[in-house]
């Protein structure tokens, strides 16, 4: 079982806890993305897997064996670093095969692995160049190649694409997928870029402040955020989180009220709480110049042109709401009518920030898998 399991893993430097009590399992052969803002502990987590950081408390299992005290070199893991960590004094070829030579593989085996990876990552013909004579994209591919030739069970990547420009990133992602399809390693990939996470991950582990916030599929992380942090971190512009008051049949934001449907009313009643925050993504807000029968009225503060669409910043009785609009250009001071899509709204506990969950009736077939939507925070 090429899985990785964290049991109450903690990491602290002196008195600062950078990772607090991690408990989760990375499944064999999956692509798991460790996502989070800088300083959230995601890199430290990856480096603990690699054995480059000591584990302060708890246990880390890989392949079913406890790894806390196993040195890096014996963990059967390959790693790609953000700065690629190519040996500047070795040629491309030497960089790729250096580790294999140390492993004392046969000449033929080394050559065949080398040929294979050079071919796959289009590095043929560059074998004798030094890293300084390669472009950024080529260096990145060399780093991938060097990690790939090891054919290790675990493939660790620390922000591997963050030094590439947008176009190269797209092609590099494809290459990574190709590698993974070929060798089905257990891939753990650290990034702060949610697009990378969404496009690449089987599952996303979102971290903040040294704690795991949510571990789930990209779809669920986007549509069913487990807490306010997840809702705000994923998506751009972020989910609107609004102060609200709960009444028997409706909720009010500012002076204006909004009637909920039966499904939501029942769901909230079951949760037996009224101290809630209201969440809605900008792309799930409908805008109009005419008033809705069940909606809100606000004033446009300003708009941002995002190219493919516009972000409209609206003042709603003192709170700011962002809405996405694809065609209409809204101007400062305009009165705007809008309503949230009833099946796309979120409610969070005000105190803890945790989601109150979603009514059974709203879960599409995709989200029905209870296992998957397990809330972890």
């Amino acid at each position, binding site marked *: 079982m090429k899985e990785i399991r964290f049991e109450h893993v903690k990491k602290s430097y002196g008195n600062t806890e950078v990772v607090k009590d991690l408990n989760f399992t990375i499944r064999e052969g999956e692509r798991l993305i460790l996502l989070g803002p800088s300083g959230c502990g995601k890199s430290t987590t990856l480096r603990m897997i690699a054995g480059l950081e000591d584990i302060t408390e708890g246990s880390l299992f890989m392949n079913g064996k*406890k790894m*806390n*005290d196993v*040195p890096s070199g014996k963990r059967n893991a390959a790693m790609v670093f953000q700065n690629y960590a190519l040996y500047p004094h070795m040629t491309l070829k030497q960089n790729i095969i250096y580790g294999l030579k140390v492993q004392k593989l046969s000449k033929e085996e080394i050559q065949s692995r080398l040929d294979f990876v050079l071919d796959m990552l289009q590095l043929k013909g560059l074998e004798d160049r030094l890293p300084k004579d390669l472009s950024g994209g080529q260096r990145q591919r060399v780093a991938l190649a060097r990690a790939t030739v090891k054919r290790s069970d675990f493939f660790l990547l620390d922000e591997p694409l963050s030094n590439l420009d947008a176009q190269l990133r797209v092609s590099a992602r494809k290459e990574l997928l190709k590698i993974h399809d070929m060798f089905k390693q257990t891939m753990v990939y650290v990034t702060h870029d949610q697009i990378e996470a969404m496009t690449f991950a089987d599952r996303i582990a979102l971290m903040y402040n040294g704690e795991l916030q949510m571990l789930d599929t990209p779809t669920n992380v986007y549509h069913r955020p487990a807490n306010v942090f997840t809702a705000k971190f994923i998506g751009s512009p972020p989910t609107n989180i609004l102060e609200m008051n709960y009444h028997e049949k409706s909720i009010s934001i500012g002076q204006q009220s909004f009637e909920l449907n039966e499904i939501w009313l029942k769901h909230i009643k079951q949760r037996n709480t009224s101290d809630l925050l209201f969440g809605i993504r900008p792309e799930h807000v409908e805008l109009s110049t005419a008033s809705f029968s069940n909606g809100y009225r606000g004033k446009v503060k300003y708009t941002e042109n995002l190219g493919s669409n516009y972000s409209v910043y609206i003042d709603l009785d003192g709170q700011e709401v962002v809405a996405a609009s694809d065609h209409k250009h809204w101007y400062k001071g305009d009165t705007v009518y809008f309503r949230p899509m009833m099946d796309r709204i979120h409610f969070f506990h005000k105190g803890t920030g945790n989601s109150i969950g979603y009514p059974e009736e709203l879960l599409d077939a995709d989200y029905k898998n209870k296992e998957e939507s397990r809330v972890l925070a």
Partner: protein
Amino acid sequence: MSAFAAVRKSLQLNRENAIGYGLLIPSIIIFAVFTFWPFLYTVYLSFFDWNMISPEKEFVGFKNYMEVLGDPRTYQILGNTFLYIVILLAINCVVPYIFAFVIGVVLQRWNGFYKSALFLPAFISLVVGSILFTWILNPVSGPVAIVFGWIGLEIPNWTKTEGWVILVLSLITSWKVFGYNFILLYASINGISKEIIESARLDNIPLWRIFLQIILPMSSATGVYVFILTIVQSLQYVFTPVKVVTQGGPDYASSNLIYHAYHEAFVVYRTGHSATLSIMTMGLFLVLLFLYFKFADRGIYYEN
């Protein structure tokens, strides 16, 4: 199982530790035998009367310290030492600082040539330098005296004149030390981000202000290091011209704490006095070092 793991963990850590210490052992042994132990032994010797030859050392308590502190010559030499320090600091700290600023920041041509040429004498024996300058500055027949003679100037007989002798020996020492200090300061100034200086230039800040208010504070860690190094190492470098040219004369007028300690030990064989002088020198340096680390800890801007 967990106890076993704990033992293994500690063994693992110990093995790492052991390799680390192992790599340090050669250096530590050399320093222990030829620096730290001798330092302690010199402290020990400062409490004894001895001539380096007799098998008996006589314990005399603080007598050496009393004698050294009671000897007016000690104060003359202390005065010489301070005079050396002041001159050496002016030539080897202040001037190279300004040079490094102008070459590193202001000028755009010949910078490489200046760097190479100024650093060059640091690679040449100070014995050579001492002999050459003694000849060049010979008050009667040296080339400088002859050129000065054309315009009616005389060179004082500096090897025999109190005051002048210290100035000239300091100059000779500076010939050797200047370039090294210059390179260290240049390195530090060169490491300051060009954007900072460029933005100051855009604000029309004059060069002398850039030097005093931007360069000086931002390179101060190196600056203080060079300051201390000038005092500590150039005083030792002075030993060579003193030994080669004047042997401390005339009448101790060119001797300093370092040379005097040597003189006491290896010329008149009073190891007690020599050790005492060395310990006093060390004390002086320690005060300077203490000031350095106090400064360095407090608010000094560290490059990078």
